């Protein structure tokens, strides 16, 4: 157990936010806590939040180790800069929280691990039909223009998660994390009432536990696509023949997607006791398929079962393609 609440009565909690390779949605989610964020701000000092507060990296470097009580880290690790900041903030923080799917599991950006930097560049800067680039010019980390030299950060070939990079105390997955649990997390931090290290702030249930759809006999004889079915708006997607990531996915969002008649695609990350989200979903599929052939009908298994967790999966590339 990490003691952060010790001097709470006398001193405000020091918190930090950092944004690595991210879409900004996690920051919006913090905003969507709406007026309750004011309670947090009243009880805590935000000591580092580059998107909002003008504090330079060197100011963070100058802070004593473990002087930040809690750091919320969103975004995946893509560049050397992301990695440097992850290590630095680990060193400076008592509690480091992987905030959101990108930090926890790599999110959809982790699917880029099926390729490497060069093949990503080729698509973006050469092949795309709107691109006019006969000499195949690509962005360079350092380039001499007429007037001087311009620099760009270097990108790693592989997207990594925060827990693969540094030791992490807690996770709160979701793309973005569900608001009620962001609030619960803030509350826990402010009162010092925290779960054991390594816990997720999301509930220890699966999406199926939050889903209003009725589970029937679940015998799967053919896989269908969501736009091919006649939805009755109440039967479990698996019973309708459509792959749903609910059983392999941690609860928290309130089954938002099934509630608008779209199967869960898994953004809250691996469910409790699930090591590998994709493997768990595939075994769920195998267990209800009437014939082994049915499993093969699942097209794009990686994108379907590992949409948000490829970077965090047992499949993750150990050696990158050259």
């Amino acid at each position, binding site marked *: 157990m990490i003691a952060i609440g010790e001097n709470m009565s006398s001193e405000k909690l020091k918190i930090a936010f950092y944004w690595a390779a991210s879409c900004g949605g996690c920051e919006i989610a913090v905003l969507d806590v709406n007026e309750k964020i004011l309670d947090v701000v009243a009880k805590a000092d935000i000591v580092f939040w580059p998107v909002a507060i003008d504090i330079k990296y060197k100011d963070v470097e100058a802070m004593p180790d473990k002087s930040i009580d809690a750091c919320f880290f969103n975004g995946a690790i893509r560049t050397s800069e992301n990695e440097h900041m992850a290590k630095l903030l680990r060193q400076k923080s008592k509690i480091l929280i992987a905030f959101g799917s990108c930090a926890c599991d790599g999110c959809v950006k982790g699917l880029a691990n099926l390729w490497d930097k060069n093949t990503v560049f080729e698509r973006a800067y050469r092949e795309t039909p709107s691109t006019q680039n006969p000499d195949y010019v690509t962005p360079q980390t350092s380039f001499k223009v007429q007037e001087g030299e311009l620099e760009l950060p270097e990108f790693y070939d592989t997207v990594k998660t925060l827990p693969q990079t540094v030791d992490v105390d807690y996770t709160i997955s979701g793309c973005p994390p569900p608001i009620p649990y962001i609030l619960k997390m803030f509350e826990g931090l402010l009162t010092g009432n925290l779960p054991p290290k390594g816990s997720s702030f999301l509930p220890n249930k699966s999406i199926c536990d939050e889903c209003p759809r009725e589970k029937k006999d679940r015998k799967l004889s053919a896989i269908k696509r969501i736009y091919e079915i006649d939805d009755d708006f109440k039967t479990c997607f698996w019973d309708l023949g459509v792959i749903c990531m609910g059983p392999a996915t941690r609860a928290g969002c309130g089954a938002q997607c099934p509630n608008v008649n779209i199967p869960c695609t898994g953004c809250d990350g691996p469910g409790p006791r699930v090591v590998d989200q994709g493997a768990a979903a595939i075994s769920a599929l195998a267990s209800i398929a009437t014939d082994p052939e049915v499993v093969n009908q699942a*097209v794009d298994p990686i994108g379907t079962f590992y949409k948000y967790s490829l970077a965090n999966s047992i499949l993750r590339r150990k050696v990158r393609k050259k």
Partner: protein
Amino acid sequence: MKEIVIDPVTRLEGHGKITIYLNDAGNVENAYFQVPELRGFERFCEGRRAEDLPIITTRICGVCPVAHHMAGAKALDAAFNVAPTETAKKLRELEYVCYYIYDHILHFYFLGGPDFVVGPDAPPAKRNILGVIEKVGLDIAKEVIKHRAYGQKITGIIGGRPTHPVSACIPGGIAKALSEEERQEIEKMVRSCVEFGKFSLKLFHDVVLKNVDYVNLIKSDPYNLQTYYMGTVDQNNKVNFYDGDIRVVDPTGTEFVKFAPHEYLDVIREHVEPWTYVKLPYLKKIGWKGLTTGPDSGIYRVGPLGRLNAAEGMATPLAQEEYEFMYKTLGGKPVHATLAFHWARLIELMYATERALELITDKAITSKDIKNKPGNPGEGVGIVEAARGTLIHHYQLDANALAKKVNLVVATTHNAPGICMSIKNAAKGLIHNGEVNQGLLNMVEMAFRAYDPCFACATHFAIGEMPLEAKIFDNEKRLVKTIRR
């Protein structure tokens, strides 16, 4: 040669970086706007299931995910050769205009607001949302927060999630019908938004237009750029966010081309520079002539002002009234003043609320007829107007409805050349004979954020102020001066 580097947000990855070079006389030689980030979606969307594309691509941007979702939905409609039912189309459009409501409110009050409401000369410490609150009062600030939340709530009801919605990933439809209960709840919120739209225009009139200095600033040279403009229009050439043909006008306002989404490759090309990860789009017919303005350059601008310039009016009465008033005030069409983006944004906010009211009071909106049967998978282009400009998704699907190829031309990308030139202009207006003052940062920032480029938007929302630093190097590359705020 002196070099000035303005690194917004403390070298934070994912944000623009500005470098200005001075010549030996100390005047601006050139300015570069770099985007230090590449996402690679066009590559890793390959092989994915068609229905996943409108879900995966929302993760390009957490600030405008609804735009990617809808461009994706429309690309799927086209690829499966199916039109959505009347109700599905109206629900999608309703969700879409409500995304405009929250996005434009966020931008005007949290970003542009500080520049105008508090004033461009106010000290940096006041030029943020807190300064806006101080000036307009806490009650109004609460209204701002409330109506932004309404917009988000409505997109959440229809899309399933306020950020990264899912319900329109079905070609030819939408997955969930609207109940009468939900309809009534939304109608209440929308009616309130219409009033808020009117209030915002009035605020702009009172605070900005009644101040001659502001109007002169809008019209001033450093903030003017003569370019082509692009935007989506309906069959009457009125601005439309969700659907229509794309119209391009030349710097005199004359129609240059009007094209259907699937014809975009006849009109647009993207140029690659080695010093930035963002591609620089231009009009194919004119060609890439470098970062220059005027009719001989293929550079065009998109977004609120681009759309208003490219169209012949607004499709709702109050927005149309204000549209006419803006062009009258600023000297006719097209308006090249970059700062008029803010005014255009409020006119669009008015339109979005009026259009939302039309849709939510439409009988068809609660019909259960929400899906048409898709045809066979093929190729399709979907175009919508994202808040920041024209957004293009182009999918090629194989027989299993897996993505073979994906091409994306993202809204902010279109404006990248314009942003670059606006920054250069602003710098030129303020840097003379090597004298660089604090005002430079404000001016450059104002030019930059009029466009509301996504990264800056996400950067600004919390406090509304971008921490900036300008470093000035001498010709030996020694740091001679640092300006911070």
